[in-house]
């Protein structure tokens, strides 16, 4: 549904620039790179959830034939706790230095304690076993309810909460109006508590890097990440090598979803390479990915909503406790800041608590925190709509945020598209269609649910260079790893602006030493930010081209326009000249002032938040407790779909992850505090036969602060999903689940309990 019709390339489903490499197996991901003389690095990880490290003896490992280097925390720059926070983006380097390599304490099973480089992977693994670590095993806690107990084992002794040592690291709140008054004026008040389990981003490509350090310290990194500049900065800070000496080359990235916004291996491989004088390759196993990277928080949320009989929300209160894992930094900002944002609520308190516990440090996961909060809020919204006997979409429309609404997290909204998403959902073929009856003899029942969601979206630093080649084609370089097709969007925009076929535009991702600083691929920011700098660069190029044509024609540059890939006189009055094409002007460039190209670097502003509304139909096998999503529609305000295929792809991908989170995915821990399902067989992500087609409705309310109207689209689609599924299951069974995942054992148990209750 592309509403923009006067464009040739914007809104077209063009072939992505990196597509050919990816369908032929030629694309180079991080683990595909090798170097002459390369050796292999492996990490020794703590088997304990919580232990003091009294000493590490690496001497036996160092003596093993084939071992070239061993590193421990002594080789990683220490950011001492007392000196205070050293922030890089949202990451505090005090925690990062301790996360990549445990210092005084190991805080989760899988926490690195040493790393070895050897001539083969097998020798490196053998050497790890020869390292002797003297652990003092400590009591531990993983679940929030255990970690916040007064006598809980404390991970970080320096931390105080209400004057006492605690695992509660911080709290944020967003407040509006008077909560007591708001609830007092309500006719119906519903309060519920929800829990969610930690879930992993589930990228199929494990973390990997190859790093070479020359004797003069010049360092080259090939790695898979969501930001080569983040890799450079973190590696620099953790190794002491200046940024100017580190060239971080972004490999193709095999999925990230937020999980590749921090480093794990790069500082270790750099120090191993520096010590050994050999290029070092490190590739995590799937088990290491599951034990020691990501996931997002498990949570405990309480949401209370009060309404008048006519459906007006008078007050809401949300309390969101999120697991940070071993180090502070759970996404409480997303949970507290996004969950109520689709609604205009006069009296509101939204609080987030950051809780440390003995599991791996959380990493960002698609709209970090927002899906957790939205699950709780949107389920209560559904229950309130039920109590009011109102259609759940009408209930949302009645309270919808719109232009002028002041959001609890600060901004007063400009023109936003939330209402449009609800209206589009209401008038969708899906919402109009009857649910259809399941085969009754099979014991199957069906239900439908809806939910909405919001994500902030982001702008930030981006750099681009647009160069015209000598033969009159175009090379665009940006600084953001492309995970989901952003290069295709950039090609469309650049072709549109220059008036040429998109196949004449080559789009590449520069490394840290060849393109200006560009912030992470994250926050749904990449196409928003990079198309701003690409647009400004292309406009500069067009200005140069007009000036060149004016010079050739000996007229004023203002009398030259750029259209359909060529310079034309603006009118017959300006002169009668044959158009000068990009190719002709490129050929004349040497004689007319030199190469044609322009670069722009900006801290981009004006990213508007994104809203989505989803409809989900489920069918539940009441014998087996299996819930299947049988129809799904995601409606989202996408600003403007530059490449509709990849915008739909973001929506569909987010929905699939949400269905996994809702129905199956969870970290399961052993009694010893270890992850018990660290592989794809037992950590059950949706497979192809689990899902139906995933329908998308792209509502386009262009962002007025962006040259093409772009809004971020990548993260919103995960936000409403778990609630939409939960609400559909409630609709089918009349049972409401207050914890995720709604997996077959849980659904079966609830159904059995329901049956027992009926029988009693």
């Amino acid at each position, binding site marked *: 549904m592309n509403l923009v019709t006067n464009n040739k390339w914007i809104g077209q*489903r063009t*072939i*992505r620039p*990196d*597509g*050919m*490499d*990816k*369908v*032929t*197996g*030629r*694309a*180079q*991901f991080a*683990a*595909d790179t090798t170097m002459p003389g390369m050796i292999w690095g492996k990490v020794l990880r703590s088997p304990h959830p919580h232990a003091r490290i009294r000493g590490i003896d690496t001497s036996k490992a160092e003596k093993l034939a084939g071992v070239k280097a061993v590193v421990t925390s002594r080789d990683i720059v220490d950011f001492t706790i007392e000196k205070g926070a050293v922030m890089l983006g949202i990451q505090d380097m005090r925690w990062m230095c301790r996360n990549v390599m445990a210092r005084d304490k190991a805080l989760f099973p899988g926490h690195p304690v040493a790393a070895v480089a050897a001539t083969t992977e097998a020798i490196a693994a053998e050497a790890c076993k020869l390292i002797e670590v003297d652990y003092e095993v400590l009591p531990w806690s993983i679940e929030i309810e255990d970690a916040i107990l007064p006598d809980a084992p404390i991970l970080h002794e320096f931390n105080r909460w209400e004057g006492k040592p605690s695992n509660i690291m911080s709290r944020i709140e967003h407040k509006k109006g008077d909560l007591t008054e708001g609830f007092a004026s309500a006719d119906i008040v519903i309060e519920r508590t929800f829990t969610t389990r930690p879930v992993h*981003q*589930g*990228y*199929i*490509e*494990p973390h990997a890097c190859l790093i070479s350090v020359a004797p003069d310290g010049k360092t080259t990194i090939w790695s898979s990440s969501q930001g080569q500049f983040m890799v450079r900065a973190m590696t620099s800070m953790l190794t002491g090598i200046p940024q100017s000496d580190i060239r971080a080359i972004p490999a*193709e*990235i*095999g*999925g*990230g*979803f937020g999980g590749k916004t921090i480093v794990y291996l790069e500082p270790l491989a750099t120090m191993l390479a520096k010590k050994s004088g050999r290029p070092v390759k490190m*590739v995590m*196993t*799937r088990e290491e990915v599951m034990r020691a990277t990501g996931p997002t928080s498990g949570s405990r949320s309480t949401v209370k909503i009060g309404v008048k009989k006519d459906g007006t929300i008078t007050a809401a209160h949300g309390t969101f406790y999120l697991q940070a894992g071993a180090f502070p930094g759970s996404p409480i900002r997303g949970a507290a800041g996004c969950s109520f944002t689709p609604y205009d609520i006069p009296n509101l308190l939204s609080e987030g608590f950051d809780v440390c516990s003995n599991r791996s440090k959380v990493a960002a996961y698609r709209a970090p925190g927002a899906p957790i909060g939205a699950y709780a809020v949107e389920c209560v919204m559904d229950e309130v709509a039920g109590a009011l006997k109102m259609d759940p979409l009408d209930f949302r429309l009645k309270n919808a945020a719109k232009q002028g609404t002041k959001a609890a997290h600060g901004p007063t909204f400009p023109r936003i598209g939330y209402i449009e998403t609800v209206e589009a959902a209401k008038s969708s073929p899906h919402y109009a269609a009857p649910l259809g009856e399941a085969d009754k003899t099979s014991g199957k029942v069906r239900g439908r649910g809806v939910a909405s969601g919001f994500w902030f979206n982001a702008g930030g630093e981006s750099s681009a260079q647009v160069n015209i080649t000598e033969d009159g084609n175009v090379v665009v370089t940006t600084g953001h790893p492309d*995970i*989901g*097709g952003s290069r295709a969007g950039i090609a469309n925009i650049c072709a549109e602006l220059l008036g040429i076929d998109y196949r004449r535009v080559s789009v590449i991702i520069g490394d840290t030493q060849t393109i200006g600083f560009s912030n992470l691929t994250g926050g749904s920011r990449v196409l928003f930010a990079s198309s701003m700098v690409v647009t400004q660069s292309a406009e500069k190029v067009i200005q140069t081209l007009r000036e060149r044509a004016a010079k050739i024609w000996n007229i004023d540059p203002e009398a030259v326009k750029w259209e359909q890939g060529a310079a034309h006189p603006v009118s017959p009055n300006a002169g009668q000249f044959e158009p000068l094409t990009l190719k002709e002007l490129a050929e004349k460039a040497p004689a007319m002032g030199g190469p044609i190209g322009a670069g722009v670097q900006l801290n981009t502003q004006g990213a508007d938040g994104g809203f989505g509304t989803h409809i989900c139909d489920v069918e539940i096998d009441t014998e087996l407790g299996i819930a299947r999503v049988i129809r799904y529609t995601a409606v989202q305000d996408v600003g403007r779909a530059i*490449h509709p*295929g*990849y915008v*739909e*792809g973001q929506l*569909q*991908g*987010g*929905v*699939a*992850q949400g269905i996994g989170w809702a129905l199956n995915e969870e970290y399961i821990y052993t009694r010893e505090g270890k992850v018990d399902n660290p*592989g*794809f*067989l037992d950590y059950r*992500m*949706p*497979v*192809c*036969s*689990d*899902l139906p*087609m*995933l329908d998308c409705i792209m509502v386009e309310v262009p962002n007025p602060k962006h040259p093409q109207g772009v809004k971020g689209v990548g993260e919103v689609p995960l936000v409403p999903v778990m609630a939409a599924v939960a609400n559909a299951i409630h609709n089918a069974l009349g049972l409401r689940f207050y914890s995720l995942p709604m997996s077959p054992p849980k659904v079966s148990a609830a159904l059995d309990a329901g049956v027992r209750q009926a029988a009693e």
Partner: protein
Amino acid sequence: MAKIHVTTTINGEPMEYLCEPDDTMLDALRGPLGLTGSKEGCASGDCGACSITVDDRLVCSCLMLAAEAEGHELRTIEGMADGERLHPLQQKFLEQAALQCGICTSGMLVASDALLRKNPDPSEEEVRFWLAGNLCRCTGYDKIVRAVLDAAAEMREATREAAQ
């Protein structure tokens, strides 16, 4: 441990390599053979990113020993296109945005090709169950399934035209 010498055929070409007894086929492909199009996502046969065919049978190369390739015919993603001419599946994946990050794409294409060789006219359900061993975390499978169904239809049409 002495290395094992293996003689096999990969993508129609005779190949030889040396491997350790415990090397997987995926290790051999990505290592000495330099065929890095097959990916390792799990090394346990759960993700399908390393899918290849052995004598037309679809297998996870991470679950096969490198030494087992002796005397067999292997096909990998690198052998799918006919020179510059893409296989219809590859073309449809491109046209229909059936890939995002691309890490699962090699395995998806090899598995889809194996399906269409067995069953040129699969239903949506048959495609979904056949590809259930190939994980994709980016796309939600929607565009992949559509691309496979469209490629199958196009290939059937081409076969009909060729027969006439």
